[in-house]
């Protein structure tokens, strides 16, 4: 038992040497009716008991990840002159949003093995058990997810976007687009030296619909019939209202 404790403290010691103290400009994103995307400022300091190690520069990686959801990717091909979906691959889990900010170019901040261990880079964040046998190039399907979502601003890799001062203070801004999914957005901060993770910190940002958005969404899920009837009532009332108003306008 003592041995185990000793080993554990030995392993834990280098990790404890540098620790993250974190602040967020907001730990909650409220999706209201006029929601048009959000920018979250993530700032923090590195706490240490020992002098700054001089061997290799300290680097910081910040990731913000939306909820992991399964999805289907389809590929089109020309058949009989028209473009149709020919095959599809199920992706077991892909984050609905994923942003990475680093303090230096990617290859300088982390090694391949450490990326694999901590699943940091975008391709690593997408989990796919495997495509059916008949599908050629299954990799192209996960690549397509990344390409399409990067274009929509849902996935982003910002190299050098983390500002690091005196190896102690850092800050970055994460852009969140308007088409966000609700959920807990896991926010991770990694400190690396020479491509190795020396410390990590995790917190979450709560993304929630509020007010009218929240009420309508809940109603549509919990009381779908009432929601549907309400939609119809609004439609009929609007139709009648416009007709009545127009008649008044023409007669008056």
């Amino acid at each position: 038992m003592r041995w185990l404790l000793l080993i554990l403290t030995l392993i834990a010691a280098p990790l404890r040497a540098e620790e993250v103290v974190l602040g967020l400009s907001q730990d909650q994103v409220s999706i209201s009716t006029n929601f048009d995307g959000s920018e979250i400022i993530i700032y923090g300091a590195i706490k240490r008991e020992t002098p700054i190690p001089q061997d290799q520069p300290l680097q910081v990686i910040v990731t913000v990840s939306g909820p992991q959801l399964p999805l289907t990717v389809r590929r089109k091909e020309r058949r009989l002159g028209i473009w149709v979906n020919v095959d599809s691959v199920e992706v077991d889990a892909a984050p609905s949003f994923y942003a990475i900010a680093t303090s230096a170019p990617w290859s300088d901040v982390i090694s391949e093995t450490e990326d694999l261990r901590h699943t940091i880079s975008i391709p690593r964040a997408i989990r796919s058990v495997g495509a059916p046998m008949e599908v050629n190039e299954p990799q192209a399907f996960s690549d397509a997810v990344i390409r399409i979502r990067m274009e929509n601003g849902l996935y982003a890799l910002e190299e050098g976007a983390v500002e690091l001062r005196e190896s102690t203070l850092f800050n970055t801004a994460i852009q969140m687009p308007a088409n966000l999914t609700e959920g807990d957005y896991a926010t991770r901060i990694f400190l690396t030296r020479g491509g190795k993770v020396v410390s990590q910190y995790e917190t979450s940002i709560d993304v929630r619909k509020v007010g009218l958005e929240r009420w309508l969404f809940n109603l549509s899920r919990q009381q779908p019939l009432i929601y549907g009837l309400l939609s119809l009532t609004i439609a009929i009332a609007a139709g009648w209202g416009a007709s009545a108003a127009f008649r008044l306008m023409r007669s008056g």
Partner: protein
Amino acid sequence: MQIYLPIAEVSVNAFLLLGLGGLVGILSGMFGVGGGFLMTPLLFFIGIPPAVAVATEANQIVASSFSGVLAHLRRKTVDLKMGTVLLIGGLIGAALGVWVFNYLKSLGQVDLLVKLCYVVFLGIIGSLMFVESLNAIRKTKSGKAPARKKHNWIHGLPFKMRFRTSGLYISVIPPVIVGVLVGILAAIMGVGGGFIMVPAMIYLLGMPTKVVVGTSLFQIIFVTGFTTLLHATTNYTVDMVLAVLLLVGGVVGAQFGTVIGAKLKAEQLRILLAMMVLAVCGKLALDLLIQPSELFSIGAAGGH
């Protein structure tokens, strides 16, 4: 002004939606079509998820058709009796159509089928109407009175009924069959079915164009209302905020459309509708024929 849509989970410009609603509303009032066949592709284009676009569009059509039908009722251009007969067929057809849709969904490729349906039906109806109205215009110009519809086999069927507003005395079988067929197509294609119903009433049933528009709108209200409820309770894809924005524009547009429609001649009205139907058909056909810039698409897991 950006507005976040709670069900679609995207943020869009409110004025863009109001404008689209207004434009489609004008067409709806003019031609008696719900406008779904135009609006649904437009909503896809501005980034609304297809499932939400189809369901919400049904809700919006209820509003614009209701507004339009009130205007037509005042001018007494709605054949309520014929509308009810068509509606009975329409609801049977819609139920059948939903069943066919789900069966095709289980086979996959339902998207392609919907698009092909659009291209084929819009193409056939558009060209038929275009040629016919062109001939009608030529005849009126040369001074000859348009020939009165001749009695054909349709008039020999049993269960005859008098439709005073339409000035018809025909069997109820053809209108019910038309209603069923349009209902099936409406459910598969996710539209009110006005663009099929209007030509069917003119050419198959021989109803006068002025009555056709109001009667078509009348039955569209019920078919799309039924579809809205179905979507809201099974797929949760009706976005009320989106619907309200579209229908505010739509109901106002429909009122203007009815006034414009009343000023145009029947042949001109038909040729305009034919041209619009052909344009949408051409656009959809091109989408199928030209290589898309992105060959991959992302969908919800387990979807079709």
